[in-house]
């Protein structure tokens, strides 16, 4: 059984400001597991969301079982036999497993819900999957792995010929992943075509028959897993990189340690994270999505509580219970999600910039010195060349790059010494990116120290003095900029604990 069920050709997709997919192709055969890999933002999820009817395709043809089709929405995809198990769980925690599976197409007797039939059908599905879950169990009472299984059961309930998994193992333990693989193999035996999006290189050998690599929205190649080494695949993912300019790394950095983190741990997210930040240095944090970089930053800043660990600023251990404690110690955190965590969008530029220093700008009754706030804001707007008609402009009316500069301005006003930038150039156009880079270099030249979290490897390589690489909550490597390459970083970034999956027999 190796006939083609899905054939995608010449696929183009544009989002505002970015060409997400350029002339991509993909094909899937009956009874195969076809892995789809690429760096963050390579277009894997976009391509699959087109197949699942979530995004409309701009250009290109999709052939399903020798018939050209258009897939206008997810329901159409499901009736054609294409189901997607999403990265985020889309279940309603307060409903039962079977209620979740049949949501939107409940079986009814007259006008009453027929729970019995639904439960029976769900039970059949679970038995098919060799899964011991009660259909009447509420989803919120299940482990994440079981919830994932319910998602899969839901996908299967559409009698899918094509099943798309978008990084399903992200939330699973090794044992649970092995269980998932067992189910995938069983489905494969039954002739279902399976598309498996993953970041985990070692899983490729374990589960996939073929691998398609995407890079920057472009199709790179499709190879047979057996005949290809992991190194070759990583090389295809990363590609040859052409630098716009040589790394702008000044050499004169001191050895003075301004921030030291010792054995930081927090649940499953952070495990024993230790590193040092030196004065005037940009320390890059690389890793794949979910590696624990943002979690590290938030833990240092007191945004999330930690289980254990020490944070030492300028040789003094500090207690950070909430962000205001970190701010007192001249730390600053610039979140990756400016709109949610960085700005009060409905407030003006001035209010946003002066927020961390408002108490300093006010007298004992809390009266804010408006002239001073204006002066400080105007100075920073000029210094950072924030393009805004006035400092009374609301933050939501500024462009992404200018919003980012307002957040930077906020911390410059506070005169923070240690700045943690989380994805500082995300969603910013090329020109503004360059300005942010220049700004980072200026800051370090003034003796400020910077931690820069970035998922763009060229950016990390270009800006950092040293690079910390994380994977699954651990630091897996620290590289000096003289020795760092994309390949080395990717190797550390995919270095999972124990490195290989444990095979468990079905129980």
């Amino acid at each position, binding site marked *: 059984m190796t006939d083609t069920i899905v054939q995608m050709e010449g696929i183009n997709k544009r989002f505002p400001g970015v060409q997400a997919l350029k002339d991509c192709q993909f094909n899937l055969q009956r009874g195969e597991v076809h892995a789809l890999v690429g760096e963050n933002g390579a277009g894997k999820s976009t391509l699959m969301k087109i197949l699942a009817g979530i995004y409309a395709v701009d250009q290109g043809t999709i052939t399903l079982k020798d018939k050209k089709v258009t897939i206008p929405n997810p329901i159409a995809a499901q009736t054609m036999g294409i189901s997607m198990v999403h990265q985020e769980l889309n279940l309603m925690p307060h409903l039962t497993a079977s209620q979740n599976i049949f949501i939107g197409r409940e079986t009814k007797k007259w006008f009453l819900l027929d729970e019995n039939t639904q439960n029976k059908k769900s039970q059949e599905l679970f038995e098919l999957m060799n899964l011991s879950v009660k259909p009447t169990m509420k989803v919120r009472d299940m482990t994440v792995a079981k919830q994932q299984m319910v998602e899969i059961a839901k996908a299967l309930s559409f009698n899918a010929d094509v099943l798309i998994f978008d990084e399903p193992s992200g939330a699973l333990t090794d044992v649970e992943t092995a269980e998932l693989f067992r189910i995938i193999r069983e489905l494969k035996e039954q002739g279902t075509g399976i598309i498996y999006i993953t970041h985990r290189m070692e899983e490729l050998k374990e589960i996939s028959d073929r691998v398609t690599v995407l890079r920057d929205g472009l199709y790179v190649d499709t190879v047979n897993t057996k005949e290809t080494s992991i190194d070759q695949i990583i090389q295809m993912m990363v590609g040859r990189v052409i630098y716009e300019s040589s790394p702008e790394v000044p050499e004169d950095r001191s050895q003075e340690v301004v921030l030291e983190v010792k054995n930081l741990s927090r649940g499953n997210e952070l495990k024993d994270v230790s590193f040092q930040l030196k004065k005037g240095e940009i320390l890059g944090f690389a890793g794949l999505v979910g590696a624990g970089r943002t979690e590290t930053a938030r833990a240092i800043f007191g945004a999330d509580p930690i289980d254990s660990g020490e944070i030492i600023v300028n040789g003094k251990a500090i207690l950070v219970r909430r*962000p205001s404690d970190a701010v007192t110690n001249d730390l600053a955190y610039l979140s990756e999600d400016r709109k949610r965590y960085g700005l009060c969008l409905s407030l003006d530029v001035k209010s946003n910039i002066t927020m961390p220093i*408002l108490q300093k700008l006010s007298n004992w009754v*809390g009266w804010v010195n408006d002239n001073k706030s204006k002066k400080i804001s105007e100075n920073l707007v000029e210094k950072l060349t924030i393009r805004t008609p006035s400092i009374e402009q609301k933050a939501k009316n500024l462009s992404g790059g200018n919003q980012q500069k307002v957040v930077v301005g906020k911390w410059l006003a506070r005169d923070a010494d240690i700045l943690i930038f989380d994805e500082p150039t995300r969603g910013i156009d090329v020109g503004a990116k360059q300005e942010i880079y220049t700004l980072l270099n200026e800051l370090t030249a003034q003796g400020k120290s910077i931690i820069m979290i970035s998922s763009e490897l060229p950016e990390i390589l270009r800006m950092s003095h040293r690079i910390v690489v994380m994977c699954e909550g651990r630091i897996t490597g620290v590289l000096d900029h003289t020795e760092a390459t994309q390949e080395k970083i990717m190797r550390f970034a995919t270095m999972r604990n124990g490195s290989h999956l444990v095979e468990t027999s079905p129980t």
Partner: protein
Amino acid sequence: MNPNHNEQKKKTRVDTIQRLMAFAALVILFIGFSLASPFFFTFSNIVGILVSTAVNGLLAIGATFIIISGGIDLSVGTVMTLSAVSAAVVVRNWGMPNIFGVLAAVATGTFAGVLNGLMVAKLKIPPFIATLGMLNVARGLSLVITDLSPIYFPLEVGWNRIAMGSVLGSIIPGFDIPNGVMLLFGSALLAGLILSKTVIGRYAFAIGSNEEAARLSGVNILKWKTIIYATGGFFIGIAGVVISARLNSAQPALGLGYELDAIAAAVIGGVSLSGGDGTMLGTIIGAFIISTLTNGLRILAVPQEWQIVVTGLIIILAVYLDIVRKRAKSS
């Protein structure tokens, strides 16, 4: 950048016009009622409207702080009553001077605010539930302290004059605007300054606009939320003084339902229930719209039950217009 700039200006202008809508509505109500009845636009009736706005206006001021910070306070009415009861206990039962009665009332309101703030910020109880609890606690305490019967202030201490006397009238003869009304205007001015010029106000907007961003900017949410609820409570304490002075007594059974009028006034005045947006001026205008409507309909001999229906419709209309305004702004 230039066309963008002009567009911004235009947007701001539209915004200002729409902000004036509540005021325009008030003016239209005045003109309409004046044409409909010769008894409406008289000095004594206008003073009557002002007096009847005082209590709800003060409660609405308190509620505005809390709503702007993204919370809600259902306890304003019964906390007001508890404040009045504290004043009565201090002045009548303990025989202390009036000033201590005022302090007791304000302290009670502020303290209830602190407790509300701690419940919301420290214990993370949703504001709706926390203040619903406080509503009942304050109501119950009022009944317990008074043993279910009203406490009357002795006439000779002149508690009544705090709201019903007229300092202004003694300075400018014939201009007998009651002190209660002056207290409302004074409080509104003070509250407006706190909201627009001090750290408390700025942080109320910041927390209501994006609590997580404010937290990550180093704003101590626990501390400032507590202060914001306490500030609201302070004005509710003043409302307790005014209502007990108007009635010359503390009526322990009073207070239920006042919270809804206060929230309605804020909402009609353009305070966003989702937080982050609103002005004191708007809230005061909102309070006046409610009392003008009630007063005018009464003069026109509209049955009281129909007055309630009209007030309800006005609230729905006001919020709908606010939504239309926001939609126009965002497009």
